[in-house]
């Protein structure tokens, strides 16, 4: 058998109980991180009000195409991860591994796209020192990019686990990793709105 359905999951399916996906700890991390990013968003909003003109001008200098394509890449990646976890729950390890590989490619695409966008900006003489908008833009995107890289490392481990028979602890890791990847996606959507859209 390629993949076992973990016993805890089997019990859950028999009794129809709802179980917390992942584990409590990852949710503490997720809500903790959301709280910190809320602080970041407040800082952006505050600076936006104080220096409205600078922010409006600077926003027009961002390449909307890069922002939108990155959003689509992460949304697709999130969808693929969710699909893969569902496949895995039904014992389809190979399909799950394929889905995760595609999600990893989406994530890698995001990183490359971001690098291209930044080198364009820096090549045009726009740096974090240009003004407060670009200071916040570069720093918060960098912190988010750091999340993407950690998330990609998790996805790689998850994919490796999919190809072997999985136990309860493996499923817990895979679900927790998927939750983290959704967080990465969610944070980007909020950053995209704040920096590119408003």
């Amino acid at each position, binding site marked *: 058998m390629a993949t076992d359905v973990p016993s805890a999951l089997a019990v859950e399916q028999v009794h129809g109980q709802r179980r917390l996906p992942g584990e*409590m700890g990852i949710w503490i*991390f997720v809500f903790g991180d959301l709280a910190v990013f809320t*602080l970041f968003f407040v800082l952006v909003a505050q600076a936006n009000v104080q220096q409205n003109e600078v922010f409006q001008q600077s926003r027009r200098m961002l390449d909307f195409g890069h922002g939108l394509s990155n959003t689509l890449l992460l949304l697709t990646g999130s969808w693929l991860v969710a699909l893969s976890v569902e496949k895995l729950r039904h014992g389809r390890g190979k399909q799950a591994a394929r889905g995760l590989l595609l999600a990893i490619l989406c994530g890698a695409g995001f990183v490359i796209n971001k690098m291209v966008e930044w080198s364009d900006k820096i090549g045009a003489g726009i740096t*974090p020192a240009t003004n407060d908008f670009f*200071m916040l833009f570069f*720093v918060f995107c960098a*912190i988010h990019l750091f999340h993407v890289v950690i998330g990609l490392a998790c996805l790689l481990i998850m994919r490796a686990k999919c190809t072997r028979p999985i136990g309860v602890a493996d499923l817990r890791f895979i679900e927790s990793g998927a939750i983290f990847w959704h967080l990465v996606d969610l944070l980007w959507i909020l950053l995209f709105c704040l920096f590119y859209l408003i």
Partner: protein
Amino acid sequence: MSGVDRDALFGRTLRLCAWSGIASIIFFVIGGVILGRMIPPLLAPNDSADIMVQKISENVMSMRVGSVFQMISFALFAVYGAGIAAQTRRCERSPGFSYIQLMFTACGTLVALLVAFSWALMSFRPGEYEPTVIQYLADYAYFLAVYSVPVFGGWCLMIALPILMVPEAEAPFPRWVGYLNVWAAVLFAPGQMVLFFKSGPFSWNGIVALWLPFVAFFLWILVMCIMMLEAAKRHGN
């Protein structure tokens, strides 16, 4: 001595380490917050050297007394860190993570003690040193405190890994504490931005680079102390 008694001794040791951590928070509030004016920061990275000397001269006595309390607070990190390592050691067949934790504890304690040294020297004779020396000491103190991310972040990760890697029943602390330590490491990370900014949220008096790591650090100590007290309860004390 019977095995039960030895366990009771371990329980008491853990309580000592936990209370040392709590004492270090209290001493920091006295020495770093109320008297030392480290946070909320009295000084700013974009202050001129003369302004810094003036501010320090006006608060020289409270900063001196503050640095005495800071010294006590930071020295207690050693006891606190050793307690976590000792509890981690119990889940290891052969010690590894507990040793790495001890190395980070020692490094972290030393880095923190140097913050108190800088604070003491700033208030020692602010009128006699060249003003730029005073400015340097202020930068040095805050850089030691928040720029040393890999030391304190690494410490947290070395606590998190054994918790998350061993089977749940043998874990030294509840699993969510492992995630909490990873989160703490993430919160310290913005401290490294102080090198690139002299004003705004990412400079050494800013909300993201100073307040976030500092608040996270002392809350982390508090949570870990409570967890050590919980662990001590399980050891018959």
